[in-house]
């Protein structure tokens, strides 16, 4: 099996896996970074969202062989103390119910704000529309993204 070395949360990590292994499963099973969640496996739900060079991507549909030199950031690496403005807003607004979708929601929201610090309501809705929450926490997600944007 081939070996892949890549940057995750600022550290160089190596995994020996088949080339078609999705980044999601490398993170979860090989590197024990289980904060990134499995929801659908077909890029439909957003539970597995991570940043690739700062851009939100669906790690369930990204083979490890395609990562290359790009830097991967997961929920564990978003901030050292859990104090990224989006995480702070999430706590403040008491967003999660079951919480399972929330790592993906937070990664999508933080990528949006990095690119567009002052999104309109429509832009927030468009960016967040790819992330499903079966518990229906959308109202609080929306409020938290808005608050995080304002706090920056």
């Amino acid at each position, binding site marked *: 099996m081939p070996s892949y070395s890549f940057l995750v949360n600022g550290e160089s990590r190596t995994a020996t896996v088949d080339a078609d292994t999705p980044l999601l499963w490398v993170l979860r099973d090989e590197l024990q970074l289980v904060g990134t969640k499995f929801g659908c*496996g077909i890029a439909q739900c957003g539970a597995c969202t991570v940043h690739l060079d700062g851009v939100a991507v669906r790690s369930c549909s990204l083979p490890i062989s395609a990562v290359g030199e790009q830097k991967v950031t997961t929920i564990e690496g978003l901030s050292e103390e859990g104090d990224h403005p989006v995480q702070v807003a999430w706590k403040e607004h008491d967003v999660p119910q079951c*919480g399972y979708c929330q790592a993906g929601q937070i990664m999508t929201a933080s990528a949006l704000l990095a690119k567009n610090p002052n999104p309109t309501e429509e832009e927030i809705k468009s960016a967040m529309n790819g992330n499903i929450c079966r518990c229906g926490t959308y109202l609080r997600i929306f409020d938290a993204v808005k608050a995080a944007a304002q706090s920056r």
Partner: protein
Amino acid sequence: MIKTTYNRRSFLKVSAATGGGMLLGFNWLAGCSTPAQADLAKALPSQWYPINAYLKIGDTGLVTIISPNPEIGQGVKTSMPMIVAEELDVEWKDVVVEQGNLDTGAFTRQVAGGSQSIRQSWDGLRTAGATARQMLLETAAARWGVAASACTVANGIITSPTGEKLGYGELAAEAATATIPEEVALKDPKDYTIIGKGKRNVDIPAIVTGKPLYGIDTQREGMVVAAMMRPPGFGQTLVSFDDSAARAVEGVIDVVRIGDKIAVIASSTWPAFKAKKLIQATWKSPELIHSSAYISAELSKLAQQRTDKPSRNDGDVDEAFAAADKILEREYEGPFLPHNCMEPMNFYADVRDDAVELHGPIQTPEGTRKDVAELLGRPESEISIGLTRMGGGFGRRLFSDFVIEAVEISREIKKPVKLVYTREDDMTAGVYRPAATYRIKAAIKEGQLSAYHISGAIVNLGLAVFPDRFPAGLISNYRVDNHNFESPVTFGYWRAPISNYLATADQMFQDELAKELGKDPIEFRLELLRNAKGKVVGEIEYDLDKSIRVMELVLEKSNWDKTEPGVKKGFSYYYSHNTHVAEVAHVRHDDGEPRVENVTCAIECGIVVNPMGAMQQAQGGVIDGLGHHLYGRLTLDAEGIPEQNNFHQFRLIRMKETPQVEVHFVPSTESPTGLGEPTLPPISGAVANAGMA
């Protein structure tokens, strides 16, 4: 006063292993959670003293409260400890919450289901806190040589008549061995300082930083991962299979047949998933295939019939129909629905000769342990179940089928295993909300409703219509028929089971009735309720006054009487899980596709323990129900195979379709009732009644 005999065992000394103070390692805090871990008000204790099964107090005064029930996102891991803390009289910031494991000796009803966690544990939790408080108080009083009744308690500190002070931490060692009081006083709700104040979900810090909280995150020494292939169509059996391509996948350890299923065992998840797809299996269909078309036709036939034993039969509906000026009759059909918890089903099982260790997300640990004991022919005492936070439940994890599968695999391969479902497995493996069909018929005589007959047919669940729900008891001629249709399509309980369809059918029908009678939809229902006061026919589950209150409240808050250009309003009401709910949906019709803009919701659920969490449950129930009303439909093809297997084919509601949800709780000092489910059933009716089917 409340007697401590309420499940007294949980107040007795904790077993020798944990009794008398215990030392905890440094990583202890990682397994716990607290409103703000970073700024814990009190230092970490070096000794913990268990006072009873629900709580232990550290020598620094920090308190650990054990939350007994499974957490599926309904918020009990926050609200249950709040109730204990209230009666214990400590500050919430000095509380650390720990998830309890299955312990039938100490706790009652460790189930997440039926919206009953708070309602059924209300007395037990309050008593646990009050008992501990009493033991601490008596310990302090004895030290001072004064009467306990002369001391005061606030925020974990006891003050003597002369002003001396002792903190719980200083008393815990002694209090842990004190006599358990026979009776304790409970607080008056008006003195509450924690209950009724919004508290954030205790697991939030761990959730937003991606800590391993869920069953799917389980990793153990020597653990392998399994994926399971099941018959694709309901009722199919396995004839033969070729696993050569699957075995060639690197990381695959074994492929084993278990009954009509095939388990792929691998070193990690991806090779297991990948190899499963490469298995070539031949399946045999049953003689009679249950497709959606077949099931739906059968349900409709049944719903049109009468049973020999009606579930309710007040007065004489036949006579009333014969004498009617007008008869209204409609049929409503509800499809199968998968649960689609965001965390797919999974479980860890290690079946060894000495013990069976299980760990993962299950709403019914007690029943599950019984099932496993029976399967293995081993005593329950050898089986342990560790509970994890769950990525949604919605009723799916009331069923232990996936735990049984994990146990079967571990027994077969003699290794610790984590079974993980793919989304496709999760959506196609059954345990669905069963399809159901309702036929409702009403008679009108001289401008009044004179008879109501509701007949329901449901797949496998046995009960389609609750006989004592609104408007039963309000109409003198009232009949209910329940029909069951047996099918290989497995059924489950799905958030607000039965109510979720029944409310829709009933509430749509009642709007039609109101129209027929030329009455305002809310006024029509209010009139039925008001007129029945003092002359209710037979037994009813719901309360007339509470029903009236939520209807009046929603009428006021939704601006029901004001017209808004382009907007249609629809009303609906339902009683379920001991809670009364009325909703108004505001649907915009003028710009393209009709769209639900806003939902007004009025709820009577007794004392609201955690308003912050309660709001979440109420809003979530409305949004979830709306999404399934608009898009949810699982169909079975001519082979009995589900036609939707992932989110590209089964649509869930997303942010863009989410309306504003305005929630109003009726103030109350009565014991709390259910809240995880009751806002869901009315929403479909409200939306449909606003002209959006």
